């Protein structure tokens, strides 16, 4: 990626923080910490120690004991392990799963797979600002409900759900709660010491750690069927040789991701961007105006085709409301869930700021977007009303 481009797609993935890269490097050197953490010789023990230190760093960041953290290949696998693992392990107790329509595909596609296997799934609708009311969850719970899976921070809109309250109502009904927190770390606090949550999916690459490593928090005593078999690693929940450099990188990244320090800085950047974009005629913010993460800004530009706007500002990396880049633009399921028309959904853009975003990049973006929106609206002069509603 050339230096000239401006990266405002931190919600898709982040660069690895230099401090994280340094920590990983030691495990990638011929005389470094490269041995198999499961080996009993001194090299193996040294690697094992790094793995356990990283587990501590991650656990500390989410307010959990280290032994509740198991490593996976990312949040997609963690979501699958949580949902498939719980539903299969408790199939005799109940076959009902509750989730929402705004979840990431890692949850929605897994829920659909569960349905194909004969489980029953209830999909909750959010209000027009993307919020799920705890009462909705309470009302949806049935005698045979086993698991509720609700995301913390939405990856398209940044809307933050009230997990503490949802957790209370699940706990009071004896139902397990899984939370997809892939977007949260370093932006919105995750407080497992205060929340009544049973499983949490985490990933490193949204938080300046490496791609391909994640974790699943599992509250002690939660029965879980593994997805894969073949060794005793991670208490047999998740076998496979532990990827020391990846785990060390995730640990370092989580250590760095101090929400109290980072969130205010992100808020300043996001608000600066919104201040500039909001003066463009007709623009609207998608999702709740205040109950949202500081790193995501999802904006609709009525009457401006999203794909054309993205090509018009090609030197700025942003993404569609929907990650889907196919040609017949099936609108983002998240934005549709908010009640947006196909036209408005496909006229929406997700801007996400991060640790390395600076004011000059934001100001340049405002200038370019403003100009390109004007140009495209001019090109579409005289278009019928539906194009902008």
């Amino acid at each position, binding site marked *: 990626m050339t230096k000239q481009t401006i990266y405002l797609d931190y919600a898709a993935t982040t660069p690895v923080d230099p401090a994280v890269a340094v920590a990983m490097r030691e495990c990638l050197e011929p005389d470094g910490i490269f041995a198999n953490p499961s080996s009993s010789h001194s090299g193996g023990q040294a690697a094992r120690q790094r793995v356990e230190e990283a587990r501590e760093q991650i656990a500390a960041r989410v307010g959990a004991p280290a032994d509740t953290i198991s490593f996976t290949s990312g949040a997609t696998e963690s979501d699958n392990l949580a949902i498939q693992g719980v539903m299969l392990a408790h199939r005799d107790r109940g076959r009902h799963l509750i989730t929402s329509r705004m979840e990431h595909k890692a949850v929605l596609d897994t829920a659909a797979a569960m349905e194909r296997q004969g489980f029953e799934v209830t999909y909750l609708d959010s209000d027009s600002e993307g919020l799920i009311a705890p009462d909705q969850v309470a009302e949806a719970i049935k005698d045979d409900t086993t698991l509720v899976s609700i995301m913390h921070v939405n990856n398209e809109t940044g809307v933050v759900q009230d997990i503490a309250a949802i957790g209370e109502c699940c706990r009071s009904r004896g139902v397990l709660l899984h939370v997809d927190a892939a977007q949260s770390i370093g932006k919105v606090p995750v407080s497992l010491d205060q929340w009544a949550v049973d499983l949490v999916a985490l990933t490193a690459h949204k938080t300046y750690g490496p791609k391909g490593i994640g974790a699943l928090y599992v509250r002690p005593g939660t029965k879980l069927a593994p997805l894969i078999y073949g060794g005793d690693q991670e208490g047999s929940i998740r076998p496979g040789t532990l990827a020391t450099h990846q785990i060390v990188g995730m640990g370092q990244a989580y250590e760095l991701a101090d929400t109290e320090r980072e969130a205010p800085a992100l808020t300043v950047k996001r608000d600066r961007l919104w201040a500039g974009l909001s003066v463009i005629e007709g623009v609207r913010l998608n999702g709740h105006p205040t109950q949202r993460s500081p790193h995501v800004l999802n904006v609709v530009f009525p*009457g401006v*085709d999203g*794909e*054309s706007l993205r*090509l*018009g500002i090609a030197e700025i990396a942003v993404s569609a409301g929907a990650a889907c*880049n*196919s*040609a*017949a*633009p099936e609108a983002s399921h998240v934005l549709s869930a908010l009640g947006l028309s*196909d*036209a408005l959904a*496909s006229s929406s853009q997700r801007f996400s700021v991060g640790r390395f975003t600076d004011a000059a990049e934001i100001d340049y973006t405002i200038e370019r977007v403003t100009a390109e929106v004007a140009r495209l609206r001019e*090109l*579409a*002069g*005289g*278009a*019928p009303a*539906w*194009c902008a509603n």
Partner: protein
Amino acid sequence: MDYSLEVQQRFHSPQGAGEFAEGTPGLVTGEAEDRTLNVWVRVQIQVVGTVIRSVRFRVFGCPHMMAAAGWVAEALQGRESNALRELDMHEIRKTLDTPLEKLGKLLVLEDALQACWQAHNVLAQGQKGS
């Protein structure tokens, strides 16, 4: 999504975008849309005798759609009016190196051109008639 150089060039500087001035003689207009594909296009043609003198268009849609409209505007210039019927969107898609799934959108452009052709014939009949 990656775009051919020609699509990028025509998208960034779309020759023929816009309208003719009010009361330009020999104007016919064709319009088409597909809401499921989020595309709308309007094409204006100035025909002098049986020859297309010039073309203007407006588009709400993706870059491929804009590029195709620009390409068509250029291609029609100076041609016999029945060229309106003869343009093959399959060919144009290949020329612009546009993904197959975009064909549906290009066919909306074809509809607009057809509309122009019909409007032109009506006009022509009228002129003969008088």
